[in-house]
């Protein structure tokens, strides 16, 4: 990791070496999670604030657990329980948190660029836990870790990303990460859900699910993000399900038998993915969640800056 790196804002600014370092460290962190006493004193004395201004169960709790496993002190701030409701600006809220001697702030916000905005203005390390439709770097890193554990390499892996790409911050981070690590990416969605920002990435396009499935190692399914869709992108949900939902039947018919299914969650059973696939032998969905804690421990460790001057060695 670049020793001058203060924040983790997106996969786009990470080098391949940095990604590899994060994943390698995460593997060692995973070992702590298997111990009888699941805690190491590494971040003792470091305070982390989790500023989640958008709903989250997986990411927030995963961060909280990662912080506790490394002995950091944590505080959680959500929109509904904070002075944001009384009209305080985001910057004021963040500055007030920093004034309480907080070392790191994990931030989730619906506006793209929020972590960057805070990173420029605060001394604390900022970790992006999802900013609008922009990036979700820790999710992409935990996906990469899950893939690495399953396939041990990224080279020549065929990954299909299927679903609401346009509104997915996960996919932007994931494409960036997969491109850097050398995997081959195909996206599959209705044309209306394929955004212009895909241009700089090396991805193949496909509009037909049947044609996408053969020969892939990984099918990465995305949720239809109704909360972010201000207009209609397809005639009806029923039509989307008919054409793009991954069903067991299609999976067995078109995909290779050793394919794995990934999904960043939350899953909408019966919409983008047939319910029983999520619980099948193909699914790595819960492995992704497990990797999440280890990856976040790794990031917290690598970004932590301890104020211990004047020690020898």
């Amino acid at each position: 990791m670049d020793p001058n790196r203060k924040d983790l804002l997106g996969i786009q600014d990470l080098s391949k070496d940095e990604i590899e370092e994060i994943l390698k460290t995460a593997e060692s962190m995973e070992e702590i999670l298997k111990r009888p006493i699941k805690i190491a004193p590494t971040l003792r004395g470091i305070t982390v604030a989790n500023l989640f201004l958008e709903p989250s169960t997986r990411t927030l709790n995963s961060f909280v657990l990662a912080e506790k496993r490394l002995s950091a002190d944590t505080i959680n701030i959500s929109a509904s329980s904070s002075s944001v409701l009384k009209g305080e600006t985001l910057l004021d809220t963040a500055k007030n948190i920093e004034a309480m001697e907080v070392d790191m702030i994990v931030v989730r916000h619906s506006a793209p660029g929020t972590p960057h905005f805070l990173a420029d203005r605060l001394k604390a390390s900022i970790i992006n836990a999802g900013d609008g439709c922009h990036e979700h770097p820790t999710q992409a890193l935990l996906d990469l870790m899950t893939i690495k554990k399953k396939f041990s390499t990224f080279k020549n892996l065929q990954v299909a990303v299927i679903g609401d790409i346009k509104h997915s911050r996960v996919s932007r981070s994931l494409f960036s990460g997969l491109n850097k690590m050398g995997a081959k990416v195909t996206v599959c969605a209705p044309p209306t859900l394929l955004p212009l920002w895909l241009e700089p990435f090396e991805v193949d396009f496909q509009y037909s699910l049947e044609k996408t499935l053969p020969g892939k190692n990984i099918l990465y399914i995305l949720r239809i993000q109704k909360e972010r869709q201000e207009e209609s992108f397809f005639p009806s949900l029923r039509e989307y399900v008919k054409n793009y939902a991954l069903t067991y039947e299609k999976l067995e018919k078109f995909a290779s038998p050793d394919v794995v299914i990934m999904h960043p969650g939350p899953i909408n059973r019966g919409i983008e993915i047939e319910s029983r696939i999520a619980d099948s032998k193909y699914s790595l969905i819960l492995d992704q969640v497990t990797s999440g804690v280890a990856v976040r421990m790794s990031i917290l460790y690598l970004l932590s800056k301890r104020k211990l001057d004047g020690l020898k060695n």
Partner: protein
Amino acid sequence: MKIKFKEKRILMDKKEIKRTIERLSTEIIVDNPDIESLCIIGIRKRGDILAKRLFKILEKRTPWEIKVGVMDITLYRDDLTIYGPKPIIGSTDFPCPIDGKEVLLVDDVFYTGRTVRSALDEIMDYGRPISVRLAVMVNRGGRELPISPDYTGISVELKDKEEVQVLFEEIDGEESVKIVEVKRGSK
């Protein structure tokens, strides 16, 4: 900043290292007439190798049930300082539950005692051994904590700017213990 080492003198060659490890094994056997099992844990990286060598000898010479494991104490260090590159973390792999076991901790060089302090903390997170002993190849003096080795290969006193290097064939390609002078260049 680049650090250069100038070799000053050799403390042990291959033969002497072998003999020293044999002697350490004997001391461990003599010192522990009543035990039935032993869990040897080497501290990464070179303590790990020393642990494996002790294991091979003790396995032949005793009826004990012996297991050998490795630990990485990076996460327990007290000097993960600011703005430096972070040390890479290796894995810790204990061979068996250590509750109620005799543990022998092994490292190459004993200096301040801080590494051993970290290792003890980590061991306590895994369980409650009956006892923990410490075996080292070189005790170079300069401890900062009330911790000292139970079994020592060789003790040396060092002058200013001198350091001890323990080199093992497995990772260094040569087998020796030597004193080097540290030269810190500006580039």
